[in-house]
């Protein structure tokens, strides 16, 4: 037909590809060193973790994880010898440092708080977001653009500035340092993201599906439930994961508005200390446990990432 070959004239040369690939791989490797270091540190003993020069090869130990989940007290060797045999690996490890386990640490309750607050607020935000997004997508809402901008603009506010009146309001309402208070707050922050993302996803579902369903005798509500929701599952799942990641990672509100019973993991992890300063293997262990779910989600989400981080502005 013509002289054009199968290859585009503008395809990068193999040399260019080689150079580009080398630089990208180098950047990728350097940029995950801090993460690998967190992982490695979590399996070091405290002396290994602060060795100079930093140890790359070391004897792995789960002392960091033991320390993360327990509180310990220093005892005399005589006292430790008078105790019965160690009741587990952690007990044994701790005794070698002349300490005994005094009880569980606060990490587990804080981690559970994170789970409750993240999942609770995600559920609420996605529930409200799906309804609103459908409303904005399918009905003529007066001032729709203004309302949508209003919903987005609440996300621009600096968290510390929002926290001042919220702190006072929650004190009046008895919501200070409660999971319910944090769930409400994170729902409010996340619902803007949920509405914007889901509106994009629902806009992409052809209206004809619902119309066909309604001609078959479904009400609008049934059509929404039976045809739109199943079609929007991917979008809802992606939105939920974004909300979950935000709530999971959030620090500023949590640090200012929670102190004890409802404290989440992010403000707690930096406060993990051992004898004579920060217990870095324990901090690294807590960080590792905290980050693993996000790593899994990031990989699941990689095709939707762009959409999520730009509030649906860029869809690709």
């Amino acid at each position, binding site marked *: 037909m013509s002289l054009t070959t199968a290859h585009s004239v*503008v395809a*990068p040369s193999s040399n260019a590809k080689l150079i*580009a*690939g080398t630089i*990208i791989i180098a950047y990728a490797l350097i*940029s995950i060193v*801090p*993460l690998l270091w*967190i992982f490695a540190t979590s399996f070091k003993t405290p002396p290994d973790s602060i060795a*100079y*020069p*930093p140890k790359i090869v070391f004897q792995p130990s789960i002392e960091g994880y033991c320390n993360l989940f327990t509180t310990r007290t220093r005892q005399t060797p005589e006292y430790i010898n008078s105790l019965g045999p160690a009741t587990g690996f952690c007990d044994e490890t701790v005794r070698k440092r002349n300490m005994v386990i005094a009880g569980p640490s606060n990490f587990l309750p804080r981690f559970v708080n994170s789970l409750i607050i993240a999942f609770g607020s995600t559920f609420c935000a996605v529930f*409200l977001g799906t*309804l*609103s997004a*459908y*409303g904005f997508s399918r*009905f003529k809402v007066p001032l729709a653009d203004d*309302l949508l901008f*209003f*919903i987005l603009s*609440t996300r*621009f*506010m*600096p*968290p*510390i*500035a929002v*926290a*001042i*009146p919220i*702190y006072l309001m929650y004190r009046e309402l008895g919501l200070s340092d409660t999971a319910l208070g944090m769930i409400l707050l994170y729902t*409010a922050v996340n*619902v*803007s993201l949920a509405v914007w993302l889901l509106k994009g996803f629902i806009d992409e579902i052809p209206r004809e599906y619902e119309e066909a369903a*309604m001609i078959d005798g479904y009400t*609008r*509500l049934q059509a929404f439930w039976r045809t739109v929701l199943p079609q929007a599952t991917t979008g809802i799942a992606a939105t939920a994961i974004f909300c979950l*990641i935000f709530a999971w*990672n959030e*620090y500023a509100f949590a*640090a200012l508005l929670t102190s004890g019973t409802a404290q989440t993991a*992010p*403000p707690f992890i*930096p406060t993990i200390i051992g004898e004579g300063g920060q217990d*870095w293997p324990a*901090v690294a262990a807590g*960080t590792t446990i*905290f*980050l693993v779910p*996000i790593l899994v*989600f*990031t990989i699941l989400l*990689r095709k939707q*990432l762009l959409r999520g*981080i*730009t509030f649906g*502005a*860029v869809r*690709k």
Partner: protein
Amino acid sequence: MLNRTADNVARATPEPLAKKIRGISDKGLAWLFISPTILLLLAINIFPLFWAIYLSFTNYRANRPNEVVKNLGLSNYQRILGDQDIWIAMQTTAHFVFWTILLQTVIGFTLAWLIDRKFRGHAFWTTIILVPMMLSPAVVGNFWRFLYEPQIGLFSYVVSFVTGIPPTNVQMLSNVELAPWAIIIVDTWMWTPYVMLICLAGLRSIPEYIYEAAEVDRASNWRQFWSITLPMALPFIMLAVLFRGIENFKMFDMVNLLTGGGPGSTTEVASITLKRQAFESWRTGYSSAFAIILFVAVFGLANIYVKALNKVKQR
């Protein structure tokens, strides 16, 4: 008889689809669906905002709730605008925003351009690069304190290994000169992938045929880059700058954990000042006024920027 005719007429008239619905009307349903979200935002965002505006005209202190609240008029605002420390904090914030955005845009765009060469395995490595931005800035930022520790920290060790400076002298977080850069480095490490991802979408949105036409016209690669690639990716770059700009204007997590605003007040950005005034000195009225000023600044900047963005898009 008449009734039946009317019935028949009514049946024959095609009704708008929406009216067929049994139960709630479309309009009712729309409000039923949208109002919970609006009510929640009014309760958790707008009501507190108005409360903050009220407080900003008073001398209220949250740690002394029983004291008589005095109305101060605009004097909180006057004091803030005349407060040397606030201006220094704003300058520090501007310095952070400028450098983080510059570095992230340059590195992010370069990475995106390289990934767009579509070498083998580029999708996998892109995913690896994206990981840092999904993580908690607070939890990961906290760990960077360890990497920055003089001597035992990996970062300090590598710097001293490469430069030959004694390892105890690489004090990233306690040196007045280095502390701001310590934060800029972590922020850049974390958020460059964000800019990269958006730039990549921009580069991929450029249709191939434009390059083919340029090739036919024998435009040099350099010329193609400046006349096609960059202008066409610009709206995307600006979108990334907008998002990063707003986020970094609010920067709190990393600074609070890495330096807490120190040494002295060299890294005290606006959010840190606000936290100190509101939750350490408990000057609630005064800090509310500062919070309102910050709102206005963020909204103002965002608005100007969005307008500029739309202009670029229209071209």
